[in-house]
């Protein structure tokens, strides 16, 4: 399968390679294989409808830029305004600090970033206030690139992904978009509805499964989520799915017993899988403030997080919390959600992300 390739490409490059016909040729199993029989006709037609949606290179990049425009105008225009025609003084640093904090970067990380710029200004004897923007950009880029790792799935199947997070951050929607993206490459996807707690969560995931043409493994509401995970792994293996994605119920990271439950779902999944999950993604809402740090810390005590999905970047939220997450916890951001459409889930690319911020 082409999964590794699919997930290891950066946003821009990926867009160019997407229409590559080889991907179709490499397809081991034809569309109408044995497993297709499990889908209803409606599901199948909806699935293929989704697949025909064209994703052009311009489309992807434009969407990313569009999604980031608000971040950019809020963030960089103000820096530009501040830096225009003046010397480097204390007020300047104070104002930079203010801007970073207003972007939810957080006090500690902001002070660190400003401190580093301050130091460079001193040691490199920089007097031009216009150079400050370049310095800040470089610092942010460095910080985000340091531990950057794209979403990479292994060659062995089924590749297994688990999605966790607090309530209301957009886990189910993210799974829908991710499944859509994987289906674009004609891979077979199984979704495990292990959010058995929230009212109608299973139905929400079912709608997505039908939309993108993925199989759904679900029990009743209130069922044991570990049991759902168990069956999902079994089904993914039996139907030789390429990718298994397990949805979990939103839970506050401070609820000890709910976190223990999550740990159990993870353990059951790895046991049935016979190996570790390939990705355990923490979904973080871009409007979240400093609490995201606490979320990431406590979730990683129950399950080994491999990365962050930052959602709702299409609002006015600056998403600066990812700088704090990268700085303090060294957790890489893997995917970003930049809109409500199915294709609005992008690879996080620190360079184009920073560039899009500054261009």
């Amino acid at each position, binding site marked *: 399968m082409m999964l590794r390739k699919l997930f290891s490409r950066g946003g821009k490059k990926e867009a160019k390679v997407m229409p590559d016909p080889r991907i179709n040729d490499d397809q081991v199993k034809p569309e109408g294989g044995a497993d297709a029989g499990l889908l209803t006709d409606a599901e199948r037609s909806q699935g293929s409808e989704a697949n025909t949606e064209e994703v052009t290179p311009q489309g992807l990049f434009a969407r990313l830029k569009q999604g980031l425009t608000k971040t950019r105008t809020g963030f960089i225009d103000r820096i530009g305004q501040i830096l225009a025609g003046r010397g480097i003084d204390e007020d300047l640093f104070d104002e930079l600090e203010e801007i970073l*904090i*207003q972007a*939810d970067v957080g006090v500690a990380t902001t002070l660190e970033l400003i401190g580093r710029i301050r130091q460079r200004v001193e040691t490199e004897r920089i007097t031009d206030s216009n150079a400050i923007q370049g310095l800040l950009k470089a610092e942010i880029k460095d910080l985000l690139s340091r531990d950057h790792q794209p979403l990479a799935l292994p060659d062995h199947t089924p590749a297994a992904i688990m999605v966790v997070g607090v*309530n209301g951050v957009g886990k189910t929607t993210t799974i829908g978009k991710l499944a859509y993206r994987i289906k674009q490459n004609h891979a077979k996807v199984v979704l495990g509805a292990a959010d058995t707690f929230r009212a109608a969560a299973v*139905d929400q995931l079912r709608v997505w499964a039908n939309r993108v043409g993925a199989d759904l493994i679900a029990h009743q*509401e209130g069922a044991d989520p570990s049991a759902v995970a168990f069956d999902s792994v079994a089904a993914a293996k039996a139907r030789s799915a390429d990718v298994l994605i397990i949805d979990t119920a939103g839970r506050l990271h401070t609820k*000890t017993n709910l976190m223990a439950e999550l740990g159990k779902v993870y353990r059951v999944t790895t046991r049935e899988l016979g190996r570790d999950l390939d990705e355990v993604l923490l979904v973080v809402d871009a409007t979240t403030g400093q*609490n995201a740090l*606490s979320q990431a810390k406590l979730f990683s005590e129950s399950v080994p997080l491999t990365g962050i999905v930052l959602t709702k970047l299409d609002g*006015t939220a600056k998403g600066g919390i990812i700088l704090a997450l990268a700085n303090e916890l060294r957790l890489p951001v893997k995917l970003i959600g930049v809109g409500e459409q199915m294709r609005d889930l992008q690879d996080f690319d620190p360079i184009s992300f920073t560039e899009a911020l500054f261009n």
Partner: protein
Amino acid sequence: MPFANLSSRLQETFRKLRARGKLTDKDVDTALREVRLALLEADVNYLVVKDFIAKVKERAVGHQVLASLSPGQQVIKIVNEELTSLMGGTQSKISLASKPPTIIMMVGLQGSGKTTTSGKLALHFKGKGHRPLLAAADIYRPAAVKQLIVVGEQVNVPVFSMGETNPVDIAKAAVAHAKTHGNDIVIIDTAGRLHIDTELMHELEEIKRSVNPHEILLIVDSMTGQEAVSVAVSFDQQLGIDGVILTKLDGDARGGAALSVKAVTGKPIKFAAMSEKMDGLEVFHPDRMASRILGMGDVLSLIEKAEATFDEQKAKELTEKMRRDAFTLEDFREQLAQIKKMGPLDQLLGMIPGMGKLGQMRDLAVDDSHLKRIEAIISSMTVEERRNPDIIGGSRKRRIAAGSGTRVQEVNRLLKQFNQTRQMMKQFSEMERRGRKGKGGFNLFR
């Protein structure tokens, strides 16, 4: 030190400062710098913080320092008072229409908790003898209507739904339905939307125009960061909100959003929502929120709870024992019994300042079933063992484990925890003794 709480940081800051007659510029500045950081870390909006600090400074400089307080305590006292008054002083209620039905519209960003909170609000009114009706006007998110229907079943309140038609029509029909079916309150659950989505914001205006709601409530996630301000301002400008419900307060977010929203809109925070259970809706307490934002924990609530359940005599004995370092497993069990009377442990721990934030403290964040096991273990010991746990060797451990239906490892863990606790108490009482010698120790809660 992003997670250090304010009181301990101030303690550090003020170690060298001595109480003077009046607060000087310097005292106030030193204290307020820490307060400013605490507020920013609590996600209070930057501009709101700036404003607030300026106001407090004006009031604090030249202020008489009370004999019993250090300058730092004095500043915190002023900060706390200002914060409380800024957040609304008294609690607000939902105003009911003179001619029913009262129409309540729930609005907010995606994922802020509108649907769950709608259910909680319905239950709240039902408990007061009203006959609420829930209206499902979220036609966008998959299965949102279904979610409200399930929530309605949970609280046993009827849900009006029309599938995925125009939300304006749904709202109108729901009100008409309420009139003919004798429902005196209609709660309209709208779809989550971005405040900059003109089309969807326009839809809310349309709903407002067509049903004339008595209350438009903005639902705000307490974990929201700096964005809380622009969200609240946009919703307020376009719709004119009447109040705010703060959700997910059972997490460990400091909830600076509450202050931001109140400061920029001037609209009261009417309820605080916590827990995923349907009865998790509480009246908002500005004073408690103030100390939570400041990182002082919800000490007031804790004190109240403790006062209601703690046996004062026993507490006194216990303190005395701690001082003399004569704390035994028997006292430990006594203490556990007292704590258990106060309510679920995780909630209690959340109220203690700095608790749940410090790594080593989180080992204590056990759930209630764990408590029962501990009690069983202690009860399986002989009186002698409880008084002098050092005599417990391998054979005694096996007996205790068998007697309490636990394992030797658990007995070991308990003994280790007990020793740590004793160690901690020793340190505390030493600190206290040093503090008495007049080193300017700063203990806000004594």
